[in-house]
């Protein structure tokens, strides 16, 4: 093979390999990702056994401990539809009532949801945000 053809062959081989790898990456990301759902979407469409990323706000007054299990409800960001979640594992510092969270859950019996261990993520604001007073006027 003359050098020019050899180089072109190499280039094509390298590009093909890169494309195959990138394709695999893209494919696995679509199959491995869990869809993010709000509580009302979850209630409407969650299959038993499927894994979902639940996003929403922790309902005021819903946090309870039962042994190692943390029980709380998550509601829509702007709504009242809520789902109960039972969770085990580490609880991030900013977790509290009214806070926005993301947690990976699967559907248990009926409308209860069991969270994957250690999957709770809390969105952390950079400052104290008083819910509805002067702080919001400033922004």
């Amino acid at each position, binding site marked *: 093979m003359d*050098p020019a053809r050899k180089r072109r062959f190499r280039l094509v081989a390298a590009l093909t390999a890169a494309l195959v790898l990138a394709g695999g990456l893209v494919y696995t*990301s679509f199959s*491995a*990702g869990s869809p993010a759902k709000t509580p009302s979407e979850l209630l409407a469409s969650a299959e038993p056994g499927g894994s979902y990323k639940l996003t929403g706000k922790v309902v005021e007054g819903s946090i309870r401990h039962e042994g190692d299990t943390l029980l709380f409800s998550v509601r829509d960001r702007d709504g009242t539809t809520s789902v109960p979640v039972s969770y085990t594992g580490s*609880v991030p510092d900013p977790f*509290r009532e009214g806070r926005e969270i993301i947690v*990976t859950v699967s559907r248990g019996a009926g409308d209860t949801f069991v969270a994957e261990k250690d999957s709770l993520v809390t969105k952390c604001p950079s400052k104290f*945000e008083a819910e509805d007073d002067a702080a919001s006027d400033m922004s």
Partner: protein
Amino acid sequence: MATVGRAALLIALLICAYGVIAAVYGALTGRREWVESARRSVYALAIALTVAFGILELAFLRSDFSFAVVAGHSSTSTPTFYKASAMWSSQEGSLLLWVWLLSLWSSLVVFLTRRRMREVVPWATAVLLGYGAFFTALLVFAVSPFDTLAQPPADGAGLNPLLRHPAMMIHPPMLYSGYTLFAIPFAFAVGALIAKRVDAEWIRSTRRFALGAWLVLGIGIILGARWSYNELGWGGYWAWDAVENASLMPWLTGTAFIHSVMIQEKRGMLKIWNVSLVLATGILCVLGTFLVRSGILDSIHAFGASTLGVPFVALIAGMSLGSIALVVWRRGLLRSEHRLDSLLSREAVFLLNNLVLVAMCFVVFWGTFFPLISEAVTGEETSVGPPWFSRYTVPLALILVLLSGIGPLIAWRRATATNLRRTFAIPVACGVVAFLALLFVPGVPQKPLALAMFALGAFVAGTVGQEIWRGTRARRAMTGEPLPLAVTSLVRRNRRRYGGYLVHLGIVVLFVGVAASSTFQTASDHRMSPGDTVRVDGYDVRYVRATAEVGNDPSGTGAMLSLGAVLDVSKDGRHVTTLRPARSFYPSNSTASGPVEWLVAGEPTSEVAVRSGPLKDFWTAVNPDMTRFQEVIDQGDKAVAADIPEMQQPMVAFRLLRDVIAPNYVENPPPAMFRMISSPLVAWIWIGSLIAIGGGLIALWPAPDAARRRATATLRARVAQDLGRA
């Protein structure tokens, strides 16, 4: 003062606008005085922004709540140390920090190049001032840090307790320094392309800046990891969070760049690749800044949605399209001077290392933006988790470590079999010995990826050791210096090379720490009452007693109440250590709650307790059950509200908390949740980083070039004389 600040920003914006015009006009007409004027406007920009930065920082230190930003992010009860850093917890303050740092680095680079690269510098100056114009315009028109309140509140909202960690003082400025320092090679690459001077000179002039950017960005990333380990109460150091990823991406392409430029300098190859890398790095830095501040992706760093989306997306799109157009336009100039001779050569290994780093960056990019991508494609927002990232980055990291052991040894152009045998015998032996030895460590052979990382780590350590040893031996043979002196003078004379080797060693140590701690970690959660004992990874942990401190926080974060636990850790009946994790509570910023609750209703944080050792870290955090505590507080609130006049309520509430409620918790503690993590070799992550930082500093340190220049000048004079005589 706010007026002065606003004026300073407005002046800064005018300076940028003038400077861009002057630089471009000077470059087009070749009139030096315009270029000089543009250079001076960079200095003027730095001065104006220093004034603005100083005024805002002073307002924070003086707790001047007539500044809206100060009222929103600081308070009189915030400790002074954190008042100073509260500035960059705000969007406005952090953007001002960004552009201020940019102006300082720009001034430095235009000063250093004032007599060089006449064609490139004007364009680079225009790009840097263009950056400056963008950010100052944001500060003037969109998010002014100098907005004032007509009626300043008596106290501000305070700095989020989660941010009250010593790293807050240096982690954000380090990241921003990294981002802004990378703007300099970016600007010079653009300048070199426009001015058609795409030889290695722009690389040489900005190499230190690229290296410095790489170093401080790396320090920033590591500080963030350390912070997360010690403060966030979940015990990890890396979570593939969107904002972490945002800082990792330019670091990866930057790492690729500082390797591949060596090939351009030595062999005149990879020119297109190099400019593309540095342009991509510059864009990723702006993207990183944007991600931190925009909240478009779910992240623990989500600082609230911002209004800056449109201008930032426009800037990023403009930079990307402009970069691509420039590279395509100048592709004719960017032809390689040489061809790759063999796949067994240093060039090929460097190229492969670059491909791996860029692939890593692509993986991180894809995973980070996947929620947006999937929403666009399927209409459903999905995200990928840490396992997905690990699946791709771990194998890539293994290849990278392997290459970092091969690269320094293999010959340029074409390696021969003899060369390979001679240079690789010892390092390969190191790797093989480590591999075989680890086969006998229980648990390790079941984890092939970790095992591979350890063996490759030994291989790289062998490479670095052999290189330093051979260099020292050669030097001793030449000069007869004693061993320690020979090592130091060897390193001193080849700072870049041996600094680079140390960086390799440090990164490998870091990877070994990451592999060990992530693979062999035991984490568990326990609900315990005083007197209970649990067993974690062979340690017996006894909850001895509860503690409660009011208004007395040893770490100086301004906590009102700390509920803690004393844990006695023993192994096989022998006392190992006593750990005191605690959870800190802060006063609330809202007035809605009762006077006692107000004292503790703020954001709580974990004060973790860690016993660090060279082999193992034992990490604990506590989360007390607040249900009963809350009832006591509610009772206290009722009592205070009923009997005490409003003026005295805060004082009485404080006393009640200190003298009744806290002692009650200590005497009669409810059960608490404990998280305990035992992970091996975590300490080596930090030690490895320190080695790498040390190596980076050695590589960055100015060579004794004044002396060298003098020596070469004499030599040149002598050669000229000889030639003249001949």
